[in-house]
């Protein structure tokens, strides 16, 4: 049994929470004993709609165990694992395998995402229906890393997931406009001599897919939105009642293309870092609800993939352990939003997106998935070391605000800033 004492919830109320048998069994004023949470914020366990776990296939970069350790340290009780493993998670055996590895690790819920197309090749649909009825109960499908570029295939995928209320999560990147692209297109790319990645390559795919979602009446999710124009397109689509959701990554809220001037591939990411104006538009979109949620796009890479020339380096950066601290900085510390919005962005809406019914709630009778956040204490990024990889773009920085405890299925997966395997 766990009792959390004096926890401040997102609505400002102060509660004790008693957890037993994996569930929240009592809330209110309970007892004088328990884990003191005075001045700490209690939120429904964080849910990441967008994680790369790298297992199977790239275990030198991350495994399900190391990735879920990083998730627990970051306050996540559930993560959605992208399909671009080797082999690709494009049939029921493969998604069940990742699902089982998550259960075995036991640190947070691992919800596999299925590939939209076989082998992420963009040529024919994967076994979407099989994956949805598998033990892994996949409802979200994505070719992330690759765009489902063929419009007819995208339409077929939307129709296919509609049958069971699923969703297609699109990595919006027109491949023809981004051949060899290395960074955001513009003056910085021009000076650095790196091939630019025009914003329109992202925006026109979002616009096309929004129309396909409208026509099919199906659900569309936009992965890692990065441009001010993209926010405008999603805003338009929502105004038309289209079933569209969108995520933004912590790094696209915080970092800009100026960092690429170092040619340090730790800043190389797909989609690329954009401009300060884009950061501003993304935050505004997050605050007004155009962007629904935070997705980390946690993308571990082993050392040699980054310790090389920019153009030879892999795309991607770590995200799970730093996400909440960054959201705290850009949303709470800046005064742009409150804890209710914070909880919506990092827990409730992504839980809903991935149909994770046990996540996103703190209430009596619910499975106990709770994150206790300490908004007062500092964290150095060097302390974020659970991942097998170290490609964090924030190394050397400190943030105010860190995860104190993470409770998954009624047990501490992180207690007093220390990950606990069971």
């Amino acid at each position: 049994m766990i009792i959390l004492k004096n926890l401040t919830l997102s609505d400002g109320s102060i509660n004790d929470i008693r957890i037993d048998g994996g569930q929240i069994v009592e809330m209110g004023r309970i007892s004088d004993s328990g884990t003191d949470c005075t001045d700490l914020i209690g939120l429904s366990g964080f849910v990441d709609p967008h994680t790369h776990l790298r297992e199977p296939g790239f275990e030198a970069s991350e495994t399900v165990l190391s990735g879920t350790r990083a998730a627990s340290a970051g306050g996540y009780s559930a993560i959605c694992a992208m399909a671009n493993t080797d082999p690709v998670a494009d049939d029921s055996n493969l998604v069940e395998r990742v699902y089982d590895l998550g259960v075995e690790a036991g640190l947070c819920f691992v919800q596999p995402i299925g590939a939209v197309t076989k082998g992420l090749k963009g040529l024919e649909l994967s076994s979407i229906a099989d994956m949805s009825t598998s033990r892994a109960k996949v409802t979200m499908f994505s070719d992330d890393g690759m765009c489902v570029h063929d419009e007819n295939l995208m339409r077929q995928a939307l129709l296919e997931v509609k049958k069971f209320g699923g969703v297609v999560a699109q990595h919006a990147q027109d491949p023809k406009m981004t051949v060899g692209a290395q960074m955001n297109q513009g003056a910085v790319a021009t000076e650095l001599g790196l091939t630019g990645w025009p914003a329109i390559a992202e925006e026109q795919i979002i616009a096309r897919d929004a129309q396909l979602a409208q026509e099919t009446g199906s659900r569309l999710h936009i992965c890692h939105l990065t441009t001010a124009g993209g926010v405008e397109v999603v805003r338009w689509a929502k105004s038309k009642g289209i079933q569209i959701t969108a995520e933004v990554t912590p790094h696209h809220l915080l970092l800009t293309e100026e960092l690429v001037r170092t040619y340090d591939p730790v800043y190389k990411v797909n989609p690329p870092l954009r401009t300060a104006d884009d950061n501003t538009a993304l935050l505004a979109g997050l605050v007004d609800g155009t962007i629904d949620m935070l997705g980390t796009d946690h993308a571990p890479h082993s050392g040699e993939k980054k310790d090389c020339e920019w153009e030879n380096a892999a795309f991607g950066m770590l995200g799970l352990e730093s996400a909440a601290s960054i959201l705290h900085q850009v949303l709470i510390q800046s005064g742009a939003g409150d804890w209710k919005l914070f909880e919506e962005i990092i827990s409730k809406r992504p839980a809903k997106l991935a149909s994770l019914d046990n996540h996103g709630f703190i209430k009596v009778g619910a499975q106990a998935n709770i994150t206790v956040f300490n908004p007062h204490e500092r964290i150095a990024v060097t302390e974020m070391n659970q991942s097998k990889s170290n490609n964090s773009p924030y190394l050397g920085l400190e943030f105010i605000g860190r995860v104190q405890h993470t409770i998954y299925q009624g047990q501490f997966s992180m207690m007093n800033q220390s990950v606990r395997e069971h």
Partner: protein
Amino acid sequence: MKHLISIRDLTRDSAVALLDSAQQLSQVNQRTIKSLPALRGKTVVNLFYENSTRTRISFEIAAKRLSADVINFDAQSSSTSKGESLKDTAQTLEALGAAAIIVRHPMSGAAHSLANRGWVSASIINAGDGRHEHPTQALLDAMTIRQQKNSGDDLAGIKVLVVGDIEHSRVARSNMLLLSLLGATVSVAGPGTLVPEGIEAMGAKVYKTFDEALDEKPDVVMMLRVQLERMQKDDTFSTREYIANWSLDQTRLGLLGKETVIMHPGPMNRGLEISNQAANDPRSAVLRQVENGLAVRMAVLHRVLSGEDSN
């Protein structure tokens, strides 16, 4: 100065000092015995991942005139074809005693990475990285302009026009930065598809046509090489149109002032970006550029390896 990666590493004063030093060192090239003992016992490696006989030879002679030991490492045909990374190759060269590594690489930022990522402690000189920069080319161009225009320390008030494929040109980028740092007014003109977005941020004015740019009476016209090997893959590139619009042909040659300096980084495509007449014109400084390249590279090698300058 430990490395030379980008013109952004220089100040106006350090650039002028390099040009002064190059001017002095150029006298060595007029002597019967063309060498100085300045870098005796130091090993300099030419690490070239792209074919460039001219630049490599220029660096090689420059290093030899300063009595350095020079090793040419043709990376195209050696370890890289076996999959060795730039980092490992550079570390190997350093283990063999390289004090300076002169690197030419097809990827933008390669020289920057060698200098700044803690891979090696040798001095790094950028001999051209992707389409990013070619700083010694810009320095030799600045030196040439300074000589031809007798302009004193810097290039204040001089109007330079750069014409051609700006998009893929590291020569253009380094020149825009250096010549404006030295007080010149830099303009560029080229086909719309070959003038990249945001180039104005590097200090250049953009003209839509060659003729409009010539109306401004530039003091220097720098023609860029058409990178044929690249253009042949581009379906939209038409040699005929390029010549009509962007070649320094006989007609345009006639529009230049008497004192206008014609420059080209070489190798020239005669009849394409530059007509035979323009290449042979007495106003052409092309061979002077090559000569100055030697002096500038001596000055840069001396600066990075002598340890006299802590900048």
